[in-house]
């Protein structure tokens, strides 16, 4: 060993004490999250074995995807139990923040299009490092490592195929201004998945001036507004209430069409895209297990579970099960990615612009 201390019993004893203390001092959440060494996997597995579980606050649908991910993950790591709590964005964030403030560190991971960002702004999110980040392009991961993308949402216009003839289908944003559609369109007022995101896309892609001019013209089309979710807006279109549903998820139209509904979707280039992402709680009680779950979700294997659940995987190498739901799959080429920070920072402005222009 170290020659200098050989022979000194006291030194040896002291060394032993330090060694034990060093082992006993658990690594902090930060150290575990940012670990970047060869035996990372081994350390995570050992730690997770002791933790035994991980709690995931999620906005995703339990039966469709959360449970399949849980099953696949637990098959890989049988000694870890995945527990989850599902709710919409604001609710899970409010809950996690309130619990953390009361020092009840129940949530390890949180996902959503904007939920991790909210937790981060409250100072309660931990940066992390995952070997899987290497596979993702810059727009699908956070530069500082606060979040990684799990799956994507693409917005499109849904239309009732019995009310809209093939040659009438509005192909571009400009086509929506056709007088034929005046009073024939509906959209949701939802900040995160409705009209405000449409406004953001238009202002972001056309530029402020041209964008605003376009929206002024769209206002004259009298698009009907509702607080219903965009899924319900699409259902009203299927029921024949409004021929066109603006800013709906393309996979919703696909699912309905698959069971025979008279509905089809068309994306206008570039289509709005939002990113469902996952982040780690700053005081996670099960950081080792949490990191293993994040690695799994971001891995190709985990992404295939999303794919098989008909979600649109974020991983560039994993296509959608229905290939054409993602850009480059044949139906549309470009997407305008609204990342979580933009959604958080500019979302209010877009929502207010929408309210002032369309709702006064």
């Amino acid at each position, binding site marked *: 060993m170290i020659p200098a201390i050989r022979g000194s019993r006291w030194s040896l004893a002291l060394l032993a004490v330090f060694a034990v203390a060093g082992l006993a001092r658990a690594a902090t959440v930060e150290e575990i999250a940012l670990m970047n060494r060869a035996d990372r996997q081994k350390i995570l597995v050992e730690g997770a074995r002791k933790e035994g579980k991980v709690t995931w606050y999620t906005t995703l649908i339990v039966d469709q995807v959360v449970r399949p991910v849980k099953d696949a993950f637990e098959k890989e790591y049988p000694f870890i139990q995945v527990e989850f709590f599902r709710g919409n964005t604001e609710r899970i964030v409010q809950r996690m923040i309130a619990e953390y*403030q009361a020092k009840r560190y129940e949530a390890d991971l949180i996902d959503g299009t*904007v939920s991790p960002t909210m937790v981060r702004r409250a100072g309660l999110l931990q940066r992390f490092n995952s070997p899987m980040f290497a596979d993702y392009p810059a727009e699908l991961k956070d530069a500082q490592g606060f979040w990684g993308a799990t799956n994507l949402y693409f917005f499109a216009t849904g239309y009732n195929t019995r009310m809209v003839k093939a040659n009438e289908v509005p192909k571009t944003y400009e086509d929506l201004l056709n007088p034929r559609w005046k009073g024939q369109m509906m959209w949701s007022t939802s900040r995160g998945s409705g009209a405000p995101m449409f406004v953001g896309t238009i202002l972001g892609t056309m530029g402020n001036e041209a964008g605003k001019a376009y929206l002024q013209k769209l206002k004259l089309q009298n698009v*009907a507004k*509702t607080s219903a979710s965009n899924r319900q807006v699409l*259902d009203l279109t299927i029921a*024949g209430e409004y021929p066109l549903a603006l800013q709906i998820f393309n996979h919703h139209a696909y699912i309905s069409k698959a*069971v025979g*509904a008279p509905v089809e979707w068309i994306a206008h280039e570039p289509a709005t895209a939002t990113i469902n992402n996952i982040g780690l709680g700053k005081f996670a009680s099960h950081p080792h297990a949490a990191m293993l779950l994040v690695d799994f979700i971001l891995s190709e294997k985990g992404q295939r579970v999303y794919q098989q659940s008909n979600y649109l995987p974020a991983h560039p190498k994993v296509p959608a099960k229905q290939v054409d739901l993602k850009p480059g799959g044949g139906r549309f080429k470009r997407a305008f990615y609204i990342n979580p920070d933009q959604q958080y920072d500019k*979302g209010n402005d877009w929502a207010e612009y929408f309210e002032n222009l369309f709702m006064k």
Partner: protein
Amino acid sequence: MASRFDVATVVMICVSVVTGYLVLPPLYSVIQTSLFTTKLTGEIDQFTLRYYEDLFRELQIIGPFLNTFYFSIGSAVFATLLGGSIAWIVVRTDSPLRGLGYFTAFASFGTPFILYTIGWLLLLGKAGPVNYWLKILFDQTTPVLNVYSMFGMVLIESLLWSPFVFLMLAAAFRSMDPSLEEASAACGARMWQTMRRISLRLMLPAFFSVMLLIFIRTFESFEIPALVGLPGDIRVLTTSIYLDAQKLPPRYGSAGAFSVLLMVVVAATLYFYFRLTREGDRYQTVTGKGYRPTLINLGRWRYLAGAALLVYSFVLLVLPFLIILWASVLPYYMQPSLEGLGKLTIKNYVTALHFPKITDAIKNSVLLGLGSASFVMVLTLLASWLLVRTKIRGRWLLDLMTTLPLLFPGIVMGLAILRFYLFVPIPVYGTLWILLIAFVTRYIPYGIRYTHSGLLQLHKELEEASYVSGASWFSSMRRIILPLMTPSFLGGWIFIFLLSAKELSMSVLLVSPQTPVVSVAIFELWENAQVGELAAFGVIWTAILVTVAIIYYAFARRYGIQQN
């Protein structure tokens, strides 16, 4: 009487402490929310009057204010007329089919709110069956009826509230003194004269309670305005509050300021109402002389009354329910047609029954309903007894305190309760108890309206006779008041039971993975699932609720009548 006074003091202290414990913390939060900006962490940040300034600016714009006013007054009047007429037919006349009234009230109120509204939109929408037939009838090519209008808002909102009116006024009609009406008839008054000058006047407290509650709830509601009014560009005062709440970080200040303003208005109203009913003797219809009102013989008109009941059930229940049932057996929604008949499927029911933890959710929701209905009714019965029977000074404050929760914005109240029990070392967080506490607080105002107007009708001589005969306060309560109050007590109990099954704004925050409830499951389906799956789930849930309500009602009525 000295011992009675002591009992009153003890009851006053107990009731005030319990009510204060439930109501004051959220009240504090609501006021605080309205006066401070909050950080993302939910901590209060800076003092501001901005929310009040915004509110007053909004109030100056005449459009939204008038819309809100028309909407609330229209719904309150229409719901009261509708529910009141049906209650009168069911309780006071010899019309056929009277049992239908109760069933319709339970079943239509048991239907999940969102589903009920969607049912009406699909029914009255541009492409719906009503417009389809109207178009043929009037030979038009465009839709005749526009549901996305003030008319649609008032119609759907009043239909939603009419079971509440029905249950409350049915209770009041049941406790009517026949001798006053008979005296009127003996003096040669016609039936409608007796109705107008005797019966309806005696019912004043009940009418007031009903109208007040509906007016307030409608005034501050945003659901129907956002789902029905918004597509037709009808803006109400709550529209901007609703939009504010979905900003990030969520802004609940405007909701807080709005509810504080309403509280002031309601406090003033209650104060005057309290003075009005202080001479409560005028409304005492249940005396020692026997009070079972006689059934009015309608003669030939009874068939018309029976037909009215049928139409009411058909409109309130059958129509929207058929649409929901129809949606639940289709792979995707389509208008009622022969084509649809060929596609019927039970797939949605299979999906609904596989919803995660569905049996737990049903069990929890039923338990919560039973618990909150029973607790609220007992608490408010005692509170009403204090308000009506004792002369303790300042008791109108108790009336106010029991009414305030009506005005708390659900989300602000939910957050207040969440935070309170995270920091206070009472281990209810994450259990069903926290939901029970929230529900009880939320529904005290309904309990108090039912029991207050019910108790006003009981003459105090009945209670005094009991004391004179040597009965204790407790046994007088149990053997005299409670049995005589059965109609109001039952009406309130069932209403709260059904209402708590729908509660959402607090539940979404307070449920834990171990304590799922049905309303949250329905909300998840509403946000993410297709209409058919939502409908299937709703049909199952409505069936369960109605079964529980009918069993309880049959059981409790028999028990109550035997006591008499």
